[in-house]
């Protein structure tokens, strides 16, 4: 019999079920969050510099329709 392919939603359910039983899995989540924040910070600091960060950031945010 063919093995059922897990959908994204199945995976979310599976992970939440495991996390409920075993809090050690929170370590993976922490790694993902820290990596995202570090990458984002580095990307925008490189793109806008620190001197005119706010002005450049606002131009960018206007450009993408965020403000």
């Amino acid at each position, binding site marked *: 019999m063919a093995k059922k392919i897990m959908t994204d939603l199945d995976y979310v359910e599976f992970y*939440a079920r495991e996390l409920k039983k075993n809090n050690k899995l929170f370590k993976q989540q922490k790694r993902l969050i820290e990596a995202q924040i570090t990458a984002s910070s580095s990307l925008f600091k490189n793109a806008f510099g620190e001197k005119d960060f706010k002005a450049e950031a606002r131009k960018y945010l206007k450009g993408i329709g965020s403000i």
Partner: protein
Amino acid sequence: MKGYELKDNVLIIKRELTSLDLFVKDFLSILKKYSDYLVVSGYVSISTGRTRGTEDVDIIFPIMEKSLFSSLFEDLKKNNFWCYQGDNAEESYSYVKNLQSLRFARINEIFPNIEFIPFNKTKKAKLFEFSHPQIIKIKDFEFKIPPIEFEILYKEIILAGKKDIEDAKHLRTFFSDILKQEKFKEYEGVIRSELK
């Protein structure tokens, strides 16, 4: 060890704090001096273990007077936050007055940011969740979120995007031992009234 416990009606999540938690904690430590609040939406799922990235943390607050908002705004600036929409309280307050969100990030950062969402008594669902807070605690960081059943239904009925349905599935599964059917029934009417 289990991922959480419910003790004296406080949800205790058994994990270490992340940089995202510390960002929210810093913002709330300032906000709490001026206003009550509720943390809603994606961060509720993420703070309880949903493993996905996020750019913003949604915080609702009851609309406030200009002078109080100005004090909050200046305090946030003094503590290294900047507002996407403007550098002075006067122009930023025009958003609040019109029930439009503001966004705050740390100086020299864009993400993560706080989406700071004002509401008034015409927003029935927001008023309801705000009046029925659930306390959640991660290490020494304690904050207020909506009842979990309310958050699940709001994501399933109102938001209903792929990410929201996945967040709701996470909450339904992770908290399956403590969710109450009668609360789902009670909250569904409140949430559906938002669609009218």
